[in-house]
């Protein structure tokens, strides 16, 4: 008798960037699975990714393929980098398909400053931003809220921020869904979640969350880059990466537990893994989660909006010019832990589906509905944050993504090394010195936390970019490299 087949052995190579595990394979799947990644990425994918995406493929109402993006790694429930779409009537909604940090996401802001202007003041700038933006464990937010105001933030998202002086009118349209999921309903959010979130608006958090000052290192498509506000090599830009903080974390925990208690008994949905809890989208519980998750998503948009207003303020203090004069325009804000109702052409028919993106970014192509008019000709900006050391990318959504991946692409580099191994390999203060020698000035709330985020703990972002560009899930527009970073 031969050796037992591993899950990976069921995968069939489709092309240089894609493998498929067919539905008919003897794994109890209800739908096929697609794994994106070039040979180098594919070789390194951990076994947990395969098992977890196969579990996803067993959920009811799945439409098309369950997928993993090239930055996929082992999570719980869905793998990080997992994408799945469920029929809006027969499908499910899964907190494990979105993640605890609901609407964790990234935004990118341009400036008209050059690296030559910013570099001499980078320490002063980063120190100022560090003072303005609460970062790390146990930090209170910068915006005191009454419960009524908190409700408004959760139900209106970015719009609340603009109305209250945290941003410009034009920021609103340069965010997925204009920074507001209209399904949000504060009344289905637990008191615990409200208590965790009310004092956290405008906080970065910790882990891999950051505010980074970067410079344009390479432009691949000058015309598209120009439309997105990236004009020259050495132009300075800023990225902000964070989510919905304790508010979203608690909402995820609350509904995950409720669904888990009812899955088998009430809805007859098998539990393949405890974190892969799900409810029928049309059930009362499923609808309530959709409303609460939307409230958390709005808090995530608002959180990044408030932080961006601090970034503008910090630049104004250091450079003595207004943010408007420095053209500190929002390029776009993307969510990479979220579920949304979207419409796709499937087998020639238009279908409404709930697309779950867990560690995956929306990548809507040219002429898609729901993208700002200025980006209609080129596709939405897609922002991929790399590790603190290796740099990030600006890309554009594609028509192929709309056909092949439910308008989805990767979200970052993807971890390959545990946090504790990274800490054993390097001390935070050594890493900080090494980064400074490379021209990256870092302020971190925790030196141990900094070491956990060392560049070597992540996949090579160039392999991720090669994979999504090669598979045409996104088109690369520009490469950005860090010159300063605030880490929680």
């Amino acid at each position, binding site marked *: 008798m031969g050796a037992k087949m591993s899950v990976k052995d069921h995968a069939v190579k489709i092309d240089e960037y894609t493998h498929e595990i067919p539905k008919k394979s003897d794994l109890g799947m209800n739908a096929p699975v697609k794994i994106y990644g070039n040979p180098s990425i594919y070789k390194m994918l951990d076994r947990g990714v395969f098992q977890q995406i196969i579990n996803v493929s067993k959920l009811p109402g799945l439409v098309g393929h369950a997928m993993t993006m090239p930055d996929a790694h*082992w999570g719980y429930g869905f793998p990080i980098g997992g994408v799945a779409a469920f029929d809006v009537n027969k499908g499910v909604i899964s907190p494990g398909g979105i993640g605890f940090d609901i609407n964790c996401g990234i935004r990118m802001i341009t400036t008209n400053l050059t690296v030559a202007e910013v570099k001499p003041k980078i320490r002063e700038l980063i120190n100022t931003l560090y003072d303005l933006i609460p970062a790390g*464990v146990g930090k209170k937010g910068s915006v005191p809220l009454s419960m009524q105001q908190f409700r408004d933030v959760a139900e209106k998202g970015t719009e609340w921020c603009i109305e209250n002086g945290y941003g410009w009118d034009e920021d609103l349209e340069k965010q997925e869904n204009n920074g507001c999921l209209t399904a949000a309903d504060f009344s289905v959010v637990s008191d*615990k979640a409200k208590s965790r979130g009310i*004092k*956290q608006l405008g906080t970065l958090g910790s882990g891999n969350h950051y505010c980074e000052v970067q410079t344009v290192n390479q432009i691949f498509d000058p015309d598209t880059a120009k439309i997105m506000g990236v004009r020259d090599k050495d132009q300075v830009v800023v990225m902000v990466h964070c989510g919905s903080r304790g508010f979203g*974390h608690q909402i995820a925990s609350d509904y995950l537990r409720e669904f888990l208690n009812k899955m088998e008994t009430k809805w007859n949905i098998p539990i393949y893994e*405890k974190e892969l809890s799900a409810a029928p989208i049309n059930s009362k519980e499923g609808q309530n989660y959709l409303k609460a998750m939307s409230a958390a998503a709005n808090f995530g948009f608002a959180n990044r909006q408030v932080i961006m207003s601090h970034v503008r303020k910090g630049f104004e203090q250091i450079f003595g010019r207004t943010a408007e004069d420095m053209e500190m325009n929002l390029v776009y804000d993307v969510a990479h832990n979220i579920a949304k109702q979207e419409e796709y052409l499937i087998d020639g028919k238009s279908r409404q589906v709930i697309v779950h993106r867990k560690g995956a970014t929306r990548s809507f192509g040219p002429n898609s509905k729901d993208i700002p008019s200025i980006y209609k000709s080129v596709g939405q900006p897609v922002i991929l944050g790399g590790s603190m050391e290796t740099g990030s990318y600006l890309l554009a959504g594609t028509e192929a993504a709309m056909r092949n991946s439910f308008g989805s692409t990767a979200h970052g580099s993807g971890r*390959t*090394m545990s*946090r504790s191994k990274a800490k054993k390999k390097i001390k935070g203060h050594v890493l900080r010195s090494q980064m400074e020698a490379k021209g990256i000035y870092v302020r971190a709330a925790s030196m141990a936390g900094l070491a956990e985020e060392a560049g070597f703990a992540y996949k090579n972002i160039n392999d991720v970019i090669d994979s999504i560009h090669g598979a045409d899930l996104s088109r690369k527009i520009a490469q950005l490299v860090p010159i300063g970073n605030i880490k929680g």
Partner: protein
Amino acid sequence: MVVVIISYRLIEDIAIADACFDLFGNSLEELFHAGFLALMETSVEVHTIKEIIEKNITLEHQNLEQLLFGFLEELIFLKDAEFLIFKKCELSINLIPETSLYTLSANVTGQEFNDEVSTITDVKAITFYQLFVRQNENGWEARVTFDL
């Protein structure tokens, strides 16, 4: 001779972006205390916490997994809602025969976050991933994973 009692162990190759721990204890109280330590030592340098504020946590549940989950979740709640972090924990866990419920009472001592507390990373949530609590020949063991 110094005897070092290992009450928890990090599992390196599970959920690599997060933190998965095996917990050990001669009693349920020791086991839950190991969970308390794993959570606090993931979040902060515990030796930098002062014992200023005391909180009492009481919970009950039909099963021990949910009781452990609930206890750790309450500590995360206190971190975000009241900005509290803890150094010490005294626990009592009992099974009430009449109701078949496990009850937990914990006195935790610590302080509100300030600049003197050296932080590490934020634990966002306790997960159900591979969560178990069971008795073994030496006492009790459990596995718990924190989302970071």
